[in-house]
């Protein structure tokens, strides 16, 4: 019995193949996501600020060399000891010499401290995000792909970590190890308490991916678990992981600032925005700029990362499902 032949199939579908047979290079999903991201003005502004911030952090020594003041250098000449250490000049000493003024009492240059503070903030938040992403991805994939008992144990652990009053625990932990390398300790502690957020998203995505038929197709071809995890699952998880990571960084910047504000963050000679805010509390009526500047830095940084993260999410998952 002859099978009726239907309408011939279109040879070249899709938007990329307007000239049939002309272009043969495919457009990958990351390329398409980048095109969508470029159209998102808020996300591009976020990306711009984030890039600038990274450059500032990297070139902090150059910037302080231009300005002429190290962040830890005391400048007794810039303050008025008769008034209890209030900076000389208006607006907390803002002027050609000290671009953003000086700290009261010590006379340290605020611009230099902010620039180095960006370094500390980014180092700790990116480091902690790295720890959280690695732990969360590994445990999330194991829980989602292996399932069963592994999922039960990892799932319960994540629930416990999520319901933990982690800030209090972090304060206790840092206080217990006063002589440890503070930035490293902060990275490990923040990352450890944060991986369950990443883990939960990776687990969910893994479960939904593992049910797709391409995983079965790979198994039908004799692929090992290793191949399936690294070649089939991970490339599809990269997008969601990038989005969570971008949205996690600002959270950790805030956590680091909070810990430093509370006195258990970065140790005093090293500048940090949270620590500066803490010091500024006593002076906000006298020198508002001392309080406003690090606050503004935190605000802009956190906002930019969030705008970028939201934009990335929209670009990578256009339907807005998942994470």
């Amino acid at each position, binding site marked *: 019995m002859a099978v009726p032949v239907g309408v011939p199939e*279109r040879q070249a579908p899709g938007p990329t193949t307007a000239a049939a047979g002309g272009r043969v290079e*495919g457009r990958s999903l990351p390329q398409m996501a980048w095109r969508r991201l470029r159209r998102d003005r808020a996300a591009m502004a976020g990306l711009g600020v984030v890039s600038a911030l990274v450059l500032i952090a990297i070139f902090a020594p150059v910037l302080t060399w231009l300005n002429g003041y190290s962040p830890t250098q005391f400048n007794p000449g810039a303050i008025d000891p008769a008034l209890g250490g209030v900076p000389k000049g208006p607006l907390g000493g803002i002027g050609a010499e000290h671009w953003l003024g000086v700290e009261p009492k010590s006379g340290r240059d605020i611009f230099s401290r902010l620039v180095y503070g960006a370094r500390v903030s980014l180092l700790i938040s990116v480091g902690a995000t790295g720890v959280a992403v690695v732990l969360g991805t590994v445990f999330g994939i194991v829980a989602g792909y292996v399932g069963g008992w592994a999922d039960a144990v990892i799932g319960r652990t994540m629930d416990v970590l999520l319901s933990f009053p982690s800030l209090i625990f972090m304060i206790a932990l840092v206080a217990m190890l006063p002589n440890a390398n503070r930035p490293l300790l902060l990275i490990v502690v923040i990352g450890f308490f944060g991986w369950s957020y990443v883990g939960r998203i990776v687990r969910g995505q893994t479960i939904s991916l593992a049910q797709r038929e*391409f995983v079965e197709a790979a198994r*039908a071809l004799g692929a090992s678990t290793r191949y399936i995890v690294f070649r089939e699952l991970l490339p599809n998880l990269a997008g969601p992981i990038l989005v969570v990571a971008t949205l996690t960084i600002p959270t950790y910047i805030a956590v680091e600032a909070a810990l430093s504000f509370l006195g258990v963050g970065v140790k005093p000679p090293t500048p940090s925005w949270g620590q500066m805010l803490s010091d500024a509390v006593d002076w906000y009526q006298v020198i508002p700029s001392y309080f406003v500047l690090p606050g503004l830095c935190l605000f802009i940084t956190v906002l930019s990362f969030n705008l970028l993260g939201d934009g990335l999410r929209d670009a990578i998952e256009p339907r807005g499902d998942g994470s």
Partner: protein
Amino acid sequence: MGSATTNTTSSSTADTTGDAAGTGGVLLEVTGLRKHFPIKRGIIFQKQVGLVKAVDGLNFTVRRGETFGLVGESGCGKSTTGRLLTRLLRPTDGQIVLNGQDISYLPQRQVRPIRRDMQMIFQDPFSSLNPRHTVGSIVGAPFRLQRVETEGGIKRAVQELLELVGLNPEHYNRYPHEFSGGQAQRIGIARALALRPKLMVCDEPVSALDVSIRAQIINLLQDLQEEFDLTYVFIAHDLSVVRHISDRVAVMYLGHIVELGEARQIYQHPLHPYTHALLSAIPISDPDVDQARERILLTGDVPSPLNPPSGCPFRTRCWKAQDICRTERPPLAEKATGHQVACHFPEDRALIPASDR
């Protein structure tokens, strides 16, 4: 279309052993195949609260070079059967003998080399292709995974495969989302064909496609079968699709085969009431005949496989059910040569008019 262009340099050992085993015309032999899924509650201390008998005692053989249709409603266990045959699932009970070799309980490590001989085509063409891989990488994966060397490299082998399934070999670097459903399914077929398997399990390969594309894909599968001497197990949820391609057909209901026979027997002399119902749902080309003919409309849903009915699984929806159907399950018995049916009251009813046969 070109001839078999890909030469696999590694000699297929299963080939020789299979022929030596003297199975003759039979490629696949399934006896008493069962797959039960336990339903568990609890997190660490799990206890079983139910048992889904997805596949509950199948017996059939598939001959070399034939197309064996497996038909039934969703939830009847036909896809589970397909996954058991390709050992993506481990059977609970029963035997699967492929090419003279019992593969039913082989550990995955030992199944791996046998996978060259059995491949699968999936229902959803997009879900079965990894969106992050290029067509070249997808169709080339079988060679890499099975460490098969090809003359002229993998890229050339892939391009030949693409051409074979009717795709432009220039599209090697494209991604799945740049293709239409029918084209994506062709990519899946090329991948399954890469290692020249003997058995191809097609799990509803055209169900997700546009009606206009279905015939093309079925024609392609038929051409490939002829060219490469393939044996198909063709899973579908209605008899109209299977009809053009199948040599023999098994009708499944709730994990059981209720009728099995040559395609001609099933379409012209159906015996089981469930087969009658499926046949009466096939659209007929002549609208006058279509209007006039008898329609059998089943009421209700397939019963839950968690709690299947006693006796005959179909009795809850059968208009002929008697007391005996509740108490005794009818065995799959041969009523004519090669035509088996599991019914207490089989009846030959012609439901497809002669003009449409």
